[in-house]
């Protein structure tokens, strides 16, 4: 077993035994899943809208180069500086350079999955820029030196008592500041306000980037996505290249599905659409136009590839349709059991089980594609109907993945296929298996299977084979 697989299994074992985590996951995922159903019911023609959204994504990804070029042109037309980053290192280097050029010492960040992919915070800190996460969940994660465990609710794994202790220890909060959840939230608000208003640079991700207008969309419930992209003088938006949508109208379609699928809200509280830095004086309004009163003076958009073109070239390309709503996490029985940390990467759940391995050039194939019972719940809830089970099967079938399967399995499977395509041999093998199980069984059940198969009997009994197979019974009753 590879190191990665061994680590994964170790994390799984920890997660499965963590009672608090199990309760938190069960509660959070079922609430979000129910809320999603309710919200889609209130949307006329939800199914047709999802089909339409899928077609938009399919078309866009199929013409990605054209739309990227259009986006970059339009964004530049509105005064944004557009940068292109092929790799993780390119992206961090670009952002660090922008920060240096701006003389930045403090950055406020609203959530960006791409920034996690490229480990941006560490790179900025190394360059002398203090980075403050402003999404409350991410702020808590940062204080704890932890990692987020769900892409929508990052600290689903922590209790309010944990948070209170953290605020006391790291921020000097007094008892009255953390007396209850509203007090803790107010305390966080006050603390983060100071950072927002003193920050030199605001860093965000982008839920969508609209090619027609060169706009980036930042969606939040808290308002940190607005404040971090308004108060500081410089705004840097990290955009995964697959986030493009062709038109404003298409954005409207996506927005109708995003929040409903993620949290069951009809829309998130703040859908922030940014088209260039603040407009200077002498704009369209004429000579009396004094320019916009606030907003950043510099907008940098960093288009990040970081393995996405590699995914596009491969059999998992459909995963690029993903709009990062998190619905697949909430529907997944595996995610619900092991939580986000067990996946070991930036993206947990079904999306992560495809995205990470598909992008990776790691020597050892990831165990994640096999960490699924292929139940199909993810496909059922995906707003753009990504067929994740099929993508997992494709990943499982890749030569490197098959080669990394344990020897007993590879040999066993070849043997099984050999036998199953030769009925006389199949009947013989079945008789041997029957004799084995019947000898070791009690009342028709075995409590221990040998070798690797003992993993079955670790959790349940195994039935002995029947004394006669159906084929044998049938042949005896209906002689030909």
């Amino acid at each position, binding site marked *: 077993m590879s190191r990665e697989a061994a680590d994964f299994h170790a994390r799984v074992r920890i997660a499965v035994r963590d009672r608090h985590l199990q309760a938190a996951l069960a509660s959070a995922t079922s609430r979000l899943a129910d809320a999603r159903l309710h919200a889609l019911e209130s949307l006329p023609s939800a199914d047709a809208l999802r089909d339409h959204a899928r077609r938009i994504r399919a078309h866009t990804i199929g013409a990605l180069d054209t739309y990227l070029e259009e986006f970059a042109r339009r964004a530049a037309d509105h005064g944004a500086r557009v940068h*292109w980053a092929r790799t993780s290192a390119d992206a961090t280097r670009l952002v660090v350079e922008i920060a240096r050029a701006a003389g930045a010492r403090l950055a406020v960040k609203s959530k960006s999955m791409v920034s996690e992919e490229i480990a941006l915070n560490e790179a900025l800190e190394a360059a002398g820029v203090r980075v403050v996460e402003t999404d409350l969940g991410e702020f808590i994660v940062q204080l704890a030196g932890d990692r987020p465990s769900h892409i929508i609710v990052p600290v689903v794994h922590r209790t309010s008592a944990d948070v209170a202790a953290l605020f006391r220890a790291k921020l000097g909060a007094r008892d009255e500041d953390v007396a209850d959840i509203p007090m803790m939230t107010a305390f966080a608000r006050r603390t983060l306000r100071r950072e927002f208003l003193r920050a030199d640079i605001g860093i965000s991700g982008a839920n969508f980037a609209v090619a027609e207008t060169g706009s980036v969309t930042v969606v939040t419930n808290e308002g940190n996505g607005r404040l971090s992209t308004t108060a500081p003088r410089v705004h840097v938006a990290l955009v995964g*290249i697959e986030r493009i949508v062709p038109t404003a109208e298409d954005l409207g379609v996506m927005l109708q599905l995003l929040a409903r699928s993620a949290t069951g809200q009809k829309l998130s509280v703040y859908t922030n659409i940014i088209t260039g830095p603040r407009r200077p004086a002498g704009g369209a309004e004429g000579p009396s136009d004094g320019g916009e009163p606030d907003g950043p003076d510099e907008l940098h958009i960093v288009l990040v590839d970081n393995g996405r073109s590699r995914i596009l070239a491969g059999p998992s390309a459909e995963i690029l349709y993903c709009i990062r709503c998190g619905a697949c996490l909430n529907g997944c029985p595996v995610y619900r059991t092991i939580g986000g940390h067990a996946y070991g990467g930036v993206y947990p759940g079904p999306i992560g089980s495809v995205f990470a391995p598909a992008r990776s050039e790691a020597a050892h194939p990831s165990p994640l594609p096999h960490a699924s019972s292929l139940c199909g719940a993810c496909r059922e809830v995906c707003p753009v109907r990504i067929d994740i089970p099929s993508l997992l099967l494709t990943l499982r079938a890749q030569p490197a993945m098959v080669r990394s399967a344990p020897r007993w399995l590879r040999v066993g499977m070849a043997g099984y296929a050999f036998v199953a395509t030769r009925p006389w041999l199949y009947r013989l093998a079945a008789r041997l298996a029957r004799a084995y199980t019947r000898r070791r069984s009690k009342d028709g059940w075995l409590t221990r299977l040998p070798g690797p198969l003992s993993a079955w009997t670790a959790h349940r009994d195994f039935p002995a084979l029947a004394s006669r197979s159906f084929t044998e019974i049938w042949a005896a009753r209906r002689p030909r």
Partner: protein
Amino acid sequence: MMADARGHVLADVRRALRGARLPEAALSHPGSFGGCPEAPAPGDAVLIARFGAELEALCGAMHLVSSIADAARAAVEIVERHEARRVLAWSERWLGCPGLLATLEQAGVQVTAIDLGADAAIRRVQLEDIEPVVVGVTGAEAGLADTGSLVLVSGPGRSRLASLLPPVHIAVLSQARVFPTLPAFLAARPGVMAEGSNLVLVTGPSRTADIEMTLTHGVHGPREVHVIVVP
């Protein structure tokens, strides 16, 4: 250097697309979504009622008034309830409520407009100055009935921070600008997204459920949203 990176990324994407195994081959753009039922025209009473219901469900408040004078009075009432002596406001031209600012000033409330400087140090000082202001007053580009959302577009005289920094946000919205849905609004106002550097859909007060999935309002944005709907 930058041109190289752009060229490389685009080349990588093109190369990938040449051999791509996407489930739908060479799909053309699907056009507009035609699946929506007939909706009432903007400004219809049904829409106003729906807007109010959605906003209230989010813990926002709609105040439906029959005159501009009533709107001004409603605004002053909210300001006074919060004992605010100062408000951050859009310029009068964009509020959609002539005389509102004058009414506030008559009530002894100082009206502040934002005008952030280009210099970082000046900016910081200005932000610290306006941070304690309790109430922000803005107009609205539109309202969206099916979600109870406000559409705010930035521009001269229309700051972003007025609807963001203070804990109480008062927005004046004209009835005629209440649309049934976001797609309906975008269809009626092509190009609106790029009119200013910022278009924001505000759907109720700021909220989070990050800690133990418990809902709290007023995290980074306002905890109270009042929409005064004028004829």
